[in-house]
């Protein structure tokens, strides 16, 4: 479904909040029909970038084109092409889901015929049919988020911008939401989403831009990023708390990092070395909880690039 046509083109984007550089020479392009992720910790500049694309914030320097339209010259045309789904639920509690949709549709001057069609489609497609006529205040958190997403795409925009759409979700609802995003992609939408969840970026994004301190520090497909920057696979050993010293003596000859009761061993061929390590641990009667080969994650990529974890916030 992904084409090679670039529909969002950002070039040399700069944004300052006083002395602080929120965005520092950010450049990237988003292909039509792909899910493009912005991955980074809180404060990396993801939300600022998304809000600029949605016309909520101005930028100091650079150029943004959406479908060939200049964001500065044609902000209203561009806004009509984007569906914005922020992390907070922006629905009116006292109105029903349908009434919220009607309001959202009116902002885009949708005709009543088109609105009817879209409500029918969205409610089935995004699973809001059963609570369409219920007031938002009566909905669960998950229902609200689904309704929020549906309201964001009620005008059938080709681009959907989602700012940390699954933050605070439990794993089941998160997975359900990922499926919804993939379904939107299958219906030809281009999705640009921000997240600080490496699994989310890995699971659903076609390409990921890793952001740190207002800059894009790496951009590619998750698999390529992991392979080229994340390093080789390693062996992870987790032992009982009182066995850590004994285990470390055994593993000492390998290149390793230990933290609490977990030791990560870096060797050239982890799949061959893992049985050898297991055997040694068993022979010394060291009680192990887990011995496994772990592939590099986007978190590893981020750590390699910045020296920090994704969950760390900027001071």
């Amino acid at each position, binding site marked *: 479904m992904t084409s090679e046509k670039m529909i969002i083109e950002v070039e040399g984007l700069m944004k300052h909040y006083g002395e602080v550089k929120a965005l520092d020479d950010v450049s990237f392009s988003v292909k039509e029909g792909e899910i493009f992720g912005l991955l980074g910790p809180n404060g990396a500049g993801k939300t600022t970038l998304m809000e600029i694309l949605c016309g909520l*914030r*101005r930028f100091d320097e650079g150029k943004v084109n959406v479908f060939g339209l200049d964001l500065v010259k044609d902000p209203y045309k561009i*806004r009509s092409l984007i569906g914005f789904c*922020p992390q907070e639920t922006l*629905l009116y509690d006292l109105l029903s889901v349908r*009434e919220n949709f009607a309001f959202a*549709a*009116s*902002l885009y*001057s949708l005709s009543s015929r088109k609105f009817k069609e879209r409500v029918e489609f969205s409610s089935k497609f995004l699973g809001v049919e059963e609570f369409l006529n219920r007031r938002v205040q009566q909905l669960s958190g998950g229902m609200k988020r689904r309704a929020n997403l549906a309201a964001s795409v009620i005008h059938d925009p080709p681009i959907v911008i989602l700012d940390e759409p699954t933050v605070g979700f439990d794993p089941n609802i998160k997975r359900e939401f990922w499926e919804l995003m993939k379904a939107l992609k299958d219906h030809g939408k281009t999705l640009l989403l921000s997240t600080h969840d490496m699994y989310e970026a890995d699971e659903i994004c076609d390409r990921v831009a890793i952001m740190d301190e207002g800059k894009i520090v790496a951009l590619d497909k998750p698999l390529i990023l992991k392979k080229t920057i994340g390093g080789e696979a390693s062996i992870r050993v987790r032992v009982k708390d009182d066995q850590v010293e004994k285990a470390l003596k055994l593993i000492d000859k390998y290149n390793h990092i230990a933290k609490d009761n977990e030791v990560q061993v870096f060797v050239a061929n982890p799949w061959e070395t893992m049985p050898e390590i297991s055997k040694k641990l068993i022979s010394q009667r060291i009680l192990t909880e887990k011995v496994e080969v772990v592939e590099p994650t986007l978190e590893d990529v981020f750590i390699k690039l910045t020296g920090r974890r994704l969950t760390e916030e900027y001071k």
Partner: protein
Amino acid sequence: MNPIVGIAVKDVKTFFREKGTIFWTIAFPVLIMLLFTAIFGRDIPFNANIGIVNEDGQTPITDAVISGLNSTGVFTLRNFTDRNEALRELNATNVRAVVTIPQNFSFDLMFTNHSKISLVVDGTNPDVARLVEDGIKNFFTEYYKMLYNQTYNMTYYEPITVNAETSFVGQRIGYKENIVPGMLCYPLLFSSMVVSTGAIVYEREKGTLKKIRASPIRPINMLFGKTLAALFQTAISILVMTVLAVTLLTPRLNWNVSLLAPIMFLGSMNGIALGLIISCIGRAPQEASNAATTIGIVLQFFIGMYFPIEYLPIYLQQIGRVIPMTYAAQAIRDVMVRNAALNEIVMPMITLTASATILYAVGVLLYKRWVEKE
């Protein structure tokens, strides 16, 4: 749906679902109207307790004085046998004045044609003191005239006679006819301003303004939508107040809807525009709401709602004359009391239109500036 209508429909629907808001939208005019009906719905809108000490005993003259004071309707008399006791009640502000009819009052009046009455007035409230003093003095002047006419069977003439007449354009009015046009300014001043103050600041607080701003709707259209909803809510307040005024006070006024409606509309637009300005300046809903209430309370003294602006010191009158709502109050009064025609209220209408346009433009600029600051 048109985005302006969409925003207005959303706001009106939300309004109808907020039971507390509906309650206060209706309760506010009801309370104000009931209060004003209780105060001004009577023929004589003033009554004070007066202590009477009759040291002259019961004579036809003292009987006539006491029953005469009683029948004015302005005073409620309390009889005291001891003057000191009456003065203690005066100090306790249980009575507003003490009238002492001295010994030989009737005799002196009949045979020397001159007598004295002692009047002590509570000075803690200058307005009440003045009304009570004037009322009692006038009563005795009139009483003496009546007594003179009866005794000498001829008309008493004061040295200079002032022939006073009252000019009325329209019909003769009473207190309630005077107060109703002023009360109809309440929704223009309070409902419109308070409703529109909440319009942006609450959306901003809740975060929903983000959604509106991320859509292709232009700021001016967003404000138009908010204005439509605020106009609707103000109209409800005006309607409730009008119905109550007609049913409770039954004032003899000219209800020329074709003239009153545009004045009300322009007055509301001024209030709404002012509210939008406050909404753009206020950072939190509470701050904006407090600002709107404070401004409303202050403005009501400047615009001639309760009393003519001539009551104000000159420098405050000048302020009153630059407040657009003064012209709405004036135009409403002109139509309802003076039966003014369209050509007679053109100037206030032009002033209201110009001020609404200017205030609205300032509101739009402030909103745009706030958006740009983001």
